[in-house]
């Protein structure tokens, strides 16, 4: 036990100051202060650059020319490992060894395909002696029909987190991920896509589902696309992060304040409308169309008569109340369109681009280079600033190609380390010495359960990609219903007792996963009379690996002790495998 450092001598801070609820807690230092590595010139430069970013003094292009960054041509995985390893060296930490082949296959399948491998895939990978088999695997998975389905699910979870499952939105995301649509184009689709475009119209659900809650629309957009949670600046200027003023919150709000939903659930924008807010110092204030970088958009001055204004009101009334109102007209000035324009233009795109890198990084590593991922401000610096800079530059230079970034991450040594730590106290997650165990998302879990419980001999063969695509679609649909039974993991996720009770005593679990039928693992295992072969097959199916000696012994023992009814015994060992944490997490 390592209690000394595990018990932080924290005293609850009592604050009654009204502003203090937004004070971010100082980010816990990765190491004690006296252990902090000496700052190198490059680091200093980047920290300075961050400040310059935040204050809007220096634009992104300036930074990306920083001489100390590795070559733009270097492979992404190499750059990742270079920066991560440099930091490990400075911290004098020897990272965990690389995960074994089968562990890595499992991790890559879950992270890129959203599912566990089939036993055939696992056995083939184990038997493959090609020195480039990992690259081949990553490229195969990225090209498989699984990848867009999985990436769609990940984006859906990110963008429509607590909103109801929306078929239109998911359809759009699938279309977008299937053609690897660039992130900036997707952003445009989601904010100002055309209702008339069959492919794009579902994208607007992002705005539509929040159109009745202006604060949510403002804050979610800022957080999900720019990595900035501005809600703290609603009531007052952000007390610690000097970057965020009330002006920013209401500036962001003003881009959305004219947005509304018509009775027919079409997205519309009013011709006029201003956002006013009260400040402690200046009293009532009118919000400018102010972006996070400090850039402002000015609306062309148009004199409007009282009659015109009244007419505008009438139009909105009609649109929101009448079923047969004509499609809403586009206003002469669209604040939402302006937001997209300013957020993506070269001199102001740093938030958008960095957030994209950071979010994808967090998808794979369970934490951002800036963490929490919605706290991009000068008081919360990145753990690896140059890496973030380099990856951002690379992303922008390659047209917001997310798949390219994902490939780089998946090929890095940082990604493929073991999740086991055997040498004393585990170092901070921020230095990536060991891979962090992630809970499966509900969809990953539902898919994996179905695959684990399926008759392993009945999967389409590796040389039948069309059949697999069809099967995968079916699986995706099956997983749909089941995924609602599991919690979407959030920060500090813990498995609930409800889940354990469900798996232990619910009839649906038994009927679906422990069924004695030809298409199920149980049905297949029943046909194997040799215990050892049976145990092997069960392990490969559920855990994508052969059993360890002690595991084989335990299962064999179980089968022998319960030999009076072999089928019952088989169902129980399958149950024990399915409910083991090994199938609950990506590790």
């Amino acid at each position, binding site marked *: 036990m390592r209690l000394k450092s595990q018990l932080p001598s924290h005293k609850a801070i009592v604050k009654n100051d009204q502003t203090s609820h937004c004070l971010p807690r100082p980010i816990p230092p990765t190491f004690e202060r006296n252990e902090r590595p000496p700052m190198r010139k490059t680091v200093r430069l980047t920290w300075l650059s961050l400040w310059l970013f935040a204050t809007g003094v220096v634009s992104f292009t300036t930074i990306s020319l920083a001489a100390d960054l590795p070559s733009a041509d270097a492979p992404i995985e190499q750059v990742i490992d270079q920066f991560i390893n440099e930091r490990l060296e400075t911290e004098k930490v020897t990272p965990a060894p690389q995960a074994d082949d089968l562990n890595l296959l499992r991790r890559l399948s879950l992270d890129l395909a959203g599912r566990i491998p089939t036993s055939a895939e696992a056995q083939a990978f184990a038997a493959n002696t090609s020195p480039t088999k990992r690259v081949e695997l990553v490229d195969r998975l990225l090209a498989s029909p699984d990848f867009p389905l999985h990436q769609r699910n990940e984006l859906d979870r990110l963008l429509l987190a607590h909103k109801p499952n929306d078929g239109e939105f998911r359809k759009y995301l699938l279309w977008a991920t299937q053609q690897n649509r660039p992130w900036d184009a997707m952003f445009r689709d989601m904010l100002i896509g055309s209702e008339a475009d069959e492919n794009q119209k579902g994208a607007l659900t992002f705005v539509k589902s929040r159109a009745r809650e202006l604060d949510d629309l403002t804050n979610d957009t800022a957080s999900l696309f720019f990595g900035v949670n501005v809600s703290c600046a609603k009531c007052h200027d952000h007390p610690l992060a000097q970057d965020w003023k009330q002006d920013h919150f209401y500036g962001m709000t003003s881009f959305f304040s004219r947005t509304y939903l018509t009775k027919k659930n079409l997205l519309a924008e009013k011709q006029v409308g201003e956002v006013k807010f009260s400040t402690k110092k200046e009293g009532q204030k009118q919000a400018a169309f102010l972006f996070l970088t400090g850039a402002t958009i000015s609306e062309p001055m148009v004199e409007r008569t009282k009659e015109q204004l009244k007419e505008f009101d009438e139009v909105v009334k009609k649109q929101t109340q009448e079923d047969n109102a004509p499609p809403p007209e586009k206003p002469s000035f669209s604040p939402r369109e302006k937001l997209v324009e300013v957020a993506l233009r070269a001199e102001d795109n740093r938030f958008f681009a960095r957030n994209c890198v950071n979010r994808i990084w967090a998808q794979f590593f369970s934490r951002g280079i800036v963490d929490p991922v919605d706290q991009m401000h000068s008081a919360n610096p990145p753990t690896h600033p140059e890496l973030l800079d380099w990856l951002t530059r690379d992303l922008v230079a390659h047209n917001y190609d997310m798949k390219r970034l994902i490939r780089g991450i998946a090929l890095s040594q940082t990604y493929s380390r073991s999740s*086991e730590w055997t040498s004393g106290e585990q170092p901070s997650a921020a230095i990536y010495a060991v891979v962090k165990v992630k809970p499966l998302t509900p969809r990953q879990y539902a898919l994996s359960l179905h695959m684990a419980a399926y008759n392993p001999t009945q999967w389409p063969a590796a040389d039948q990609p069309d059949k697999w695509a069809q099967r995968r679609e079916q699986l995706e649909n099956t997983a749909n219903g089941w995924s609602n039974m599991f919690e979407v993991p959030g920060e500090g996720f813990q498995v609930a007792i409800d889940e354990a009770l469900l798996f232990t005593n619910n009839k649906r679990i038994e009927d679906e996963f422990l069924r004695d039928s030809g298409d199920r693992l149980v049905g297949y295992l029943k046909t194997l009379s040799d215990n050892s072969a049976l145990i092997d097959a069960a392990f490969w199916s559920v855990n994508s690996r052969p059993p360890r000696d002690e595991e084989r012994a335990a299962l064999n023992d179980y089968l022998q002790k319960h030999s009076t009814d072999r089928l019952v015994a088989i169902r129980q*060992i399958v149950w024990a495998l399915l409910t083991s944490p090994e199938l609950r997490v990506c590790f």
Partner: protein
Amino acid sequence: MNPGSFFCGSADHGVNRRGFLSAAALGTAGTFAADMTQLDLLRHSAWADDVKKKEKRVILLWLAGGASQFETWDPKPGRPTGGPFRAIQTASSGVQISELMPKMAARMQTTAIIRSLNTKNGDHGGGSSLMETGRRKDPGIDYPDLGALCAKELGRIDSAVPDYVSLYSSTEGRRKGTSGFLGARYAPMFLSENMVPENVRRLETISDIDHQDRAALRDLLAKRFAQNRTSDVIGSHTNAYQRVRGLMASEKLFDIEQEPEAMRAKYGPTQFGQQCLIARRLVEAGVPFVKVARAWWDSHGQNFETHRELCADLDHSMAVLLDDLKDRGLLEHTLVLTFGEFGRTPQINPSLGRDHFASAWSASLSGCGVKGGACYGKTDPDGHTVAEGEASAGDLFATILTALGIDPHKEYTLGARPVPLSDFGSKPIKEVLA
């Protein structure tokens, strides 16, 4: 290890969570207790306090739809807003309550009243959310409700009973409760249509011995996997499966047939009465938080008739519950609360109803940590506004937490953001605390 990934940096939370993770890392059922013992040696006093705190229980009688303060805790007899019912003297000198609550009047020494809630939200959804979580909604933060907070603060990680049980049988305004950012680990076990929890009964297709054997096999596989992997997720997974058998055994807690006939007769025939009896059985078995919702008080029409019925139900059930808890020596550890999303208007509408009103209404606290017979705050003579001691939802929460021995200003950390247990700026009302 990086403490940044945890919600809360406070010392005692650290104890729990640390113990939990270590158990997870070692991965056996027995290790947890041993681990706690080790902590005990090192942090004796803190741990002792912790144990003491863990004896505390809460029963929230949630008056869904909004009960009238005039017909319960803050009568205004003879005033134009007062309605027809008299005020009666209670066992606490100087404190009068509505004649619709005679049994509670006789037990006022157990109970404190707060008459000065001004919660400002007279909408069922918004008001419920406010009174469940003790704060207004915030974009981007999903707050846990009182039940989840108490489950986390008072519950034992390895408890054989549920941490938070929520009963809501009527369908109107039915709300399950939410553990918000604390996650499903602290979500309520929710019972609505019938009083048998889901998935606590062994399927007939498996024998009890097989049920246990396969669980043991699962534990063995899980333990091997957990070796060398330090993870909240794995730890909680292990913990959840370890609690299964205990929770299955707790099914009988929901069965009032297990009670002697005489005891059931005391609680009476109403559903609410019976659910109060279930609540008592649960807290007696160690469940830290039970919410019994009594819906639906939303008396827009016929307020007096509605309260004649519902107050009779509340008065009787609550009085029997308090007596029973007291007889069993549980009352000093159990806090019994009554409130809902808001109170009701002073104005009496043409249907002789009262409408939604959040500007000046009442809540009650009985038992654990409460100064019995106290009456805090005052409304004006007609009950339109708070005249003295205005209290917010946050203040009520701070008071409740303090009564339970929990520091209301303790903070969780969500992302980089501190979230205190009771809202910023809230203060416990000392006048109603023992």
